[in-house]
């Protein structure tokens, strides 16, 4: 097994064994979505109208909250330095950790989304588009978030700073993710929005590991 896949397997295993971090982010996703019917009121028509936006915003916040898991623990116990010294380029280390983060923080959200869509009365026509858009959009969230996580890893109170840095960069994913679902509900083709989400994901796949690795080198000095 190559170092790359070994690192992914290690991170996924750690995420599932340490206090079930993956289920925690799904629980946050559920709770955040649950607040909206309580805040906005339980009318089905309103909830159906805002369902796509609510699901996306909750998914965004849930990924944001789990970003500290990317590098924090490894930085604190020193294993990040060992990873940086290993033969694997730091960019690929970052990529492996992003993939593991997506498997444990992004993928569970996609699995939970249909249930929440049902609770919010999301029109059935939009469900396929929602799942596709989340499948294409959430990897970008992990990758973009890695830059913020790497920059704030050595800071004592990095949490709020992390959201200030990362949330403005999440906006395009949110806009096109919601637009894809809205288009599908309106009976329009949502393929163009999905293609843009895929384009953002591909660009993030290339650029974000570079930026995040540069930020990590800074923290490891």
């Amino acid at each position, binding site marked *: 097994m190559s170092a790359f896949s070994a690192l992914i397997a290690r991170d996924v295993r750690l995420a599932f064994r340490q206090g079930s971090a993956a289920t925690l982010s799904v629980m946050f996703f559920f709770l955040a979505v649950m607040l909206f019917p309580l805040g906005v009121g339980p009318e089905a028509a309103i909830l159906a109208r805002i369902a796509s936006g609510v699901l996306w915003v909750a998914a965004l916040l849930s990924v944001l909250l789990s970003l500290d898991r990317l590098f924090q623990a490894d930085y604190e116990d020193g294993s990040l330095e060992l990873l940086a010294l290993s033969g694997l380029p730091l960019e690929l280390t970052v990529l492996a950790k992003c993939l593991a983060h997506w498997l444990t923080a992004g993928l569970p959200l996609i699995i939970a989304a249909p249930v929440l869509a049902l609770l919010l009365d999301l029109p059935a026509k939009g469900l396929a588009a929602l799942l596709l858009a989340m499948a294409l959009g959430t990897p970008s969230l992990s990758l973009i978030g890695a830059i913020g996580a790497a920059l704030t890893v050595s*800071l004592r109170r990095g949490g709020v700073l992390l959201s200030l840095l990362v949330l*403005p960069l999440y906006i395009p994913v949110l806009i096109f993710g919601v637009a894809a679902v809205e288009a599908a509900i309106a009976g329009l083709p949502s393929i163009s929005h999905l293609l843009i989400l895929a384009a953002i994901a591909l660009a993030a796949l290339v650029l974000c590991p570079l930026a995040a690795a540069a930020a990590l080198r*800074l923290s490891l000095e």
Partner: protein
Amino acid sequence: MHRFANPARFLRITDAVLPWSAALTIVLLALGLYYGLWASPVDYQQGATVRIMYIHVPAAWMGMMIYSLMAIASAVALIWRHPLADLIAKAAAPIGASFTFICLVSGSLWGAPTWGTWWVWDARLTSVLILFFLYLGYIAIWQAFDDPTRAARAAAIVALVGFVNIPIIKFSVDWWNTLHQGESLFTGHGSEIDPTMLRPLILMALAFTAYFITVLIYRVRAEIIARKLRVLRLSAIEG
């Protein structure tokens, strides 16, 4: 470029530039305000409200230009470890954030009588608001690190990542919704603005640029002095 990497030379050059840029700021600002507030006609639709534009539009230009300058300076700092580029980017950020804030507030004041609302979630307004938060994030990362050299490199990464994202954000919010006026100055077939209104606009834009250069020089000089003080204090502690 590396000729200007020496802080002492920078201080010498700016000593010569500073009085001129400061005088230019005052003259251009006085002319721009005179033409903007008195010697220009009222708009046939907007009335005297149009005068807000002479502040709003140049402030929006400055907000975008200063972020681009910060991104270029950050790239220079990361690639060549140019010691002054970091300081220029750091010193420019609060000025850019202020111009962006002025742009948002003046746009809001203009929108209330003209559009009938203080704020709309329109593409341009939203992207300027995001630009403002990018500025705040950049300023916050400088403050988050104790060691200035590490803060400089982290901030440079933040500025560049934000710069790559600005076109993406702009593009996405443009598709999302729009109410703001289109471009009327750089249209490809000449300006659509009447010369009497174009004059104060250009004068104010030049005045803002001169103001930016003046304040930037002051702030960079203050940064250089602060760095010197820090080094002196640290060497005093280490004996």
